[in-house]
């Protein structure tokens, strides 16, 4: 596996050396405001997130459930621009924690794929997670990312065939994102029984297609106990909606939201070390 300077590979290697899973935390940029969002993401870094995913708010987020939709809408209503998202990346990446953007494809295409890749690189970003772009439709992004050593994180799902999992993992750099439930983003009370088999199939594919590529699992984790369960079979535990919820539950009170984020991060960070 090749790792880039700002890439997430190093964070995964460090967690692996510690004998634990990495904690990957998500918030959309501009939520609740651009500055407030930067502050919130830094709180997550301080409290133990190993990798940060910054969502680029988009008008038509087909893979997101109500929680992330609400946050992204709030950011859009606040007038968030793509350049604000890049500014957020720059501020968070400056902490030394690898920072990815998670984005639907159209905003990247509109910005210009190569121009976006350069701006992300210049901001110190690690790469992109692309929930509605699969490797077979991503030649332009693959070229732009490879030219700069940016991470390319594509998704696999329980419905993916073994053939597609092999194709996808071979195209990834940084890690592969296993969406382990069939459904939109959102916290779930019980973890899915689809996750274990998906991760096992993905790891089998990685052995031949992309040796050493970590597998991060997104499955609606919202507490340390669930994180521990997922950490028992995955290299990374991805948490999104629960962080968003922590902020949504404290509207207009950023210090309280920040405290809630810190407490949640600490709980999850213990979980991945259990």
């Amino acid at each position, binding site marked *: 596996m090749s790792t880039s300077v700002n890439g997430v590979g190093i964070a995964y290697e460090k967690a692996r050396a510690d004998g634990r899973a990495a904690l990957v935390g998500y918030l959309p940029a501009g939520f609740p405001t651009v500055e407030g969002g930067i502050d919130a993401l830094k709180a997550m870094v301080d409290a133990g997130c190993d990798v940060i995913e910054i969502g680029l708010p*988009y*008008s*038509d*987020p*087909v*893979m997101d*459930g109500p929680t992330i*939709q609400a946050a992204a*809408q709030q950011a*859009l209503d606040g007038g968030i*621009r*793509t350049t604000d998202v890049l500014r957020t990346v720059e501020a968070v990446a400056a902490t030394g924690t690898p920072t990815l953007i998670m984005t639907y*494809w*159209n*905003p*990247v*295409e*509109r*910005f210009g794929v190569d121009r976006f890749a350069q701006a992300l690189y210049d901001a110190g970003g690690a790469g992109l997670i692309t*929930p*509605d*772009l*699969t490797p*077979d*439709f991503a*030649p*332009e992004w693959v070229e732009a990312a490879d030219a700069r050593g940016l991470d390319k994180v*594509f*998704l*696999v*799902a*329980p*419905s*993916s*065939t073994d053939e*597609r999992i092999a194709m*996808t993992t071979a195209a990834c750099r940084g890690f592969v994102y296993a*969406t382990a439930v*069939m*459904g*939109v983003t959102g916290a779930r009370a019980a973890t899915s029984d689809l996750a274990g088999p998906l991760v096992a199939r993905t790891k089998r594919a990685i052995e031949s297609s992309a040796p050493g590529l970590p597998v991060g699992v997104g499955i609606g984790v919202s507490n340390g106990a669930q994180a521990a369960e997922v950490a028992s079979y995955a290299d990374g535990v991805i948490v999104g909606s629960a962080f968003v919820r922590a902020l949504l539950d404290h509207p207009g009170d950023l210090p309280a939201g920040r405290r809630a984020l810190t407490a949640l991060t600490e709980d999850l960070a213990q979980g991945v070390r259990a």
Partner: protein
Amino acid sequence: MSQGYDADEHGWYGGAGGFGGRFMPEALIAALDELEVAWQKAMLDPTFLHEFESLLQNYAGVPSMLYEAHRLSDHVGARILLKREDLNHTGAHKIRNVLGQALLTKRMGKTRVIAETGAGQHGVASATAAAYLGLDCTVYMGEVDTERQALNVARMQLLGAEVIPVRSGSRTLKDAINEALRDWVASVDHTAYLFGTAAGPHPFPSLVLSFVRGIGDEARRQCLDLDGRLPDAIAACVGGGSNAIGLFAGFLDDPEVAIYGFEAGGDGVETGRHASTIHAGSVGVLHGARTYVLQDEDGQTVESHSISAGLDYPGVGPQHAALAASGRASYLPVTDAEAMDAMALLARTEGIIPAIESAHAIAGVVKVAQERQGETILINLSGRGDKDMGTALEYFGLGTATGEKQ
């Protein structure tokens, strides 16, 4: 077959990396692949094709007639032929698409269908096909549209469908599609998504075309039977573009036939309140395909506007995008006011009340006929106007009897 105009195996129109494709979450790729294989097999299976054809004939009232509109012709100075899709069961061309997709659903062993709807025509058609074939049906409809089209909500409910108002985003058609996709990703093992227009990810644009292309194939035959020659021009309204592509498909390989698509110009393209995606939009990716999109500088979808809910969509089918880019078809805007005038014009000259969507095509032809005097122009009258009487009542100030006994 119009080989040069079809999508390639990856769903690209106009060459790889052009328009169309499949920009979709990995979780739905297996379902799209499964659908593509089942559809391709079905289209080669005489039993399936026979079942589809006989259902269209005996249940939907297809082939729809070709009708020469003499008084309208006198008015516009060109000879106007109307393809009467408004006379189909459920009142529009949409029934062709849903019967095809619902039959395919049965064949695939799935028990539930979901659909999005704008004006409600596709929702009503989906609910109808589901009732006929004994499938469960859930329809997503923007909350704004449920208010504009309450009568169609009632129709769907009477037909046994569950109608879910969508309150996210702009609460119109595009958000109904988002919500249907969210449902589908969680229910794909037993649910088929009956996509309502020739847009979306591959194979939907090609699949929908295969079920609606009867419009154009029939019209071509009917023109030859009637005149022994093809029309000089053909025209249809374009929202997502299923009725238009169905008509156009029959004539793409006839270069002597001019092709016009009329988009919703809303308050006028210059006001920014419109749905003229091809005429005034830019290339982007929306709902799984690269096509023309109404979007801002950052690629955020901009809300469309049209008096016609069925054309009120900020995207358009990728084959239309390719036909526009290649110059084979021309796409022009028609304002709300022009469409409403055309609705009244057709009612008063021919005794036919068109859907406001279809009235855009009439209005567009009234304009282009100024340069096509004496020529024969075929218009797809894609739907009837019963569902739009609320809008007409308000727009024209109708409904109060004011005449006096002479």
